[in-house]
């Protein structure tokens, strides 16, 4: 059986710990059997001032950093509702996994993750608690949010086009003689080959696969509903 990352290289955990604790002195690391838990209070700091604090627990799963850290607010302060982006098991939906290349790319550290999406999320929560909107907006729930994301990323609202792109993003390889997903009818190599190659370095295959499956089941549901007339 494959060894867990924190046992493969114990110095990695030590380095991560000292890096995180140099900034967040109240976060503590607790290695468990096949994962690592981080617990404590997370301060929302701006210009040296602590604007708020949240009691959090972060779980680094056994296949971290392949799998994203799981963030939970454990102080019982944020409602466990869709509108507050906390699912019923208490997990925070910080961002859409497909956009992890932007905020949690390979090589980025746990400290980057805390200073980036985790901080963004809690700045937003504090504002929402005070009756303000999410500072950068929010994705719609579930599949609709996926469509919104790819519509923005690809510059099209056409679901069929989005699905063709997702199909190519899901594949282990793409070939130049294939038809371009944009719908021009041209071969990929004569159309959006470079753009697609670039996208494939960003969106992970497994994320694309998952999103594609979600959108396919969504369209099936819609067809069933629409076909009932």
């Amino acid at each position, binding site marked *: 059986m494959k060894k867990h990352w924190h046992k493969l290289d114990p110095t990695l955990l030590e380095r991560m710990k000292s890096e995180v*604790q140099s900034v967040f*002195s*109240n*976060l*503590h690391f*607790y290695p468990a059997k096949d994962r690592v838990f981080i*617990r*404590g*209070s997370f*301060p*929302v700091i*701006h*210009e040296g*001032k*602590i*604007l*708020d*604090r949240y*009691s*959090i627990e972060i779980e680094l799963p056994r296949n971290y950093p392949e799998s994203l850290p799981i963030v939970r607010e*454990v*102080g*019982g*302060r*944020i*409602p*466990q*509702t*869709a*509108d507050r*982006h*906390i*699912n*019923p098991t*208490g997990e925070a*939906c*910080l*961002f*859409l996994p497909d956009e992890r290349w*932007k*905020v949690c790319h390979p090589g980025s550290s746990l400290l980057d993750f805390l200073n*980036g999406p985790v*901080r*963004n*999320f809690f*700045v*937003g929560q*504090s*504002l929402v608690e*005070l009756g*303000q909107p*999410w*500072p*950068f*907006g*929010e*994705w719609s*729930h*579930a599949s609709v*949010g996926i469509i919104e994301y790819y519509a923005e990323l690809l510059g099209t609202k056409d679901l069929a086009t989005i699905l063709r792109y997702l199909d190519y993003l899901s594949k282990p390889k793409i070939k130049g003689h294939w038809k371009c997903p944009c719908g021009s009818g041209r071969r990929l190599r004569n159309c959006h080959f470079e753009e697609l190659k670039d996208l494939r370095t960003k969106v992970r295959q497994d994320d694309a696969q998952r999103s594609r499956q979600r959108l396919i089941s969504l369209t099936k549901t819609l067809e069933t509903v629409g076909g009932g007339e």
Partner: protein
Amino acid sequence: MNENEYLREILKSQTLAPGSEELKTLQERRAEVEGLLREQFHESSPTIRYGGSKAKGTMIKEAYDLDIISYFPHDDTSAGETLEEIYNNVRDALSTKYYVESKPSSLRLKDADPSNYGVDFHIDVVPGRYTDNSKTDVFLYRSTGEKKRLKTNLDTHIRHIKESGLIEAIQLLKLWRVRNGLRVKHFALELLVIELLKGKRSWVLSRQLKHAWEQLRDNSETISIQDPANPTGNDLSELLNAGIRSELSSVSERTLQIIHDSGWEGVFGPVEENGEDDRGRRIDMLKGAAAGIATPTRPWFLP
């Protein structure tokens, strides 16, 4: 400002002033809970009052736990024949209004309103039955462990804390607990502090705290606590199980290291003003923080 002045300032910023919004909210909730229980169990006329940090004077802003005890007369059976029945009936009564989480001897109340679902009120309702007519000792139901009931006495607990002369150390260590995400229960932490600082009540706060952390760092495996209301009868070992002991030990070690390296502010943070929280100013500051974010993200939701 020397370290003890600093600690006093921290304590001051954590005090819930009489008439403060937080206290008013707590009092309203207590009245609500009491009303509900009195209505449901009017035949039993239970004794309902504050327990926990509210009764003991150890409450702090950042971590208030409000216990509301509901003790039934020893010869009353209308609330339930057995302790377990009483516990279940009180839970059912509370469930008509709250999202109730069952804990070993108490019932934690959370918001059941769909828009605030799961928000923790930090209120524990503790059902029990007096052991006799003197209305002093109480039996509590216990859903876990070997013994299905434990004997306790709220007044003994309150006296134990108040007479310890260690209220301030307890308050600061409760703040330390919440700031560091420790899972030790408030009740166990209070007993622990009193045990560790026995004979040290005349020491200044900073020395008391350092001593407590040194003890936790070095002797976490052997320290034991007893329930002052039933020293030999109630087994508290689960409150200090191996996981909790090791958390206490490693965080204590780290805390002492921080004080050594960078001073006390690393532990409790800068002194924050305890003024009226100006809502508009808070919003402005948070918006400023948002405006400075280089890589924005939008939250998503997957049911």
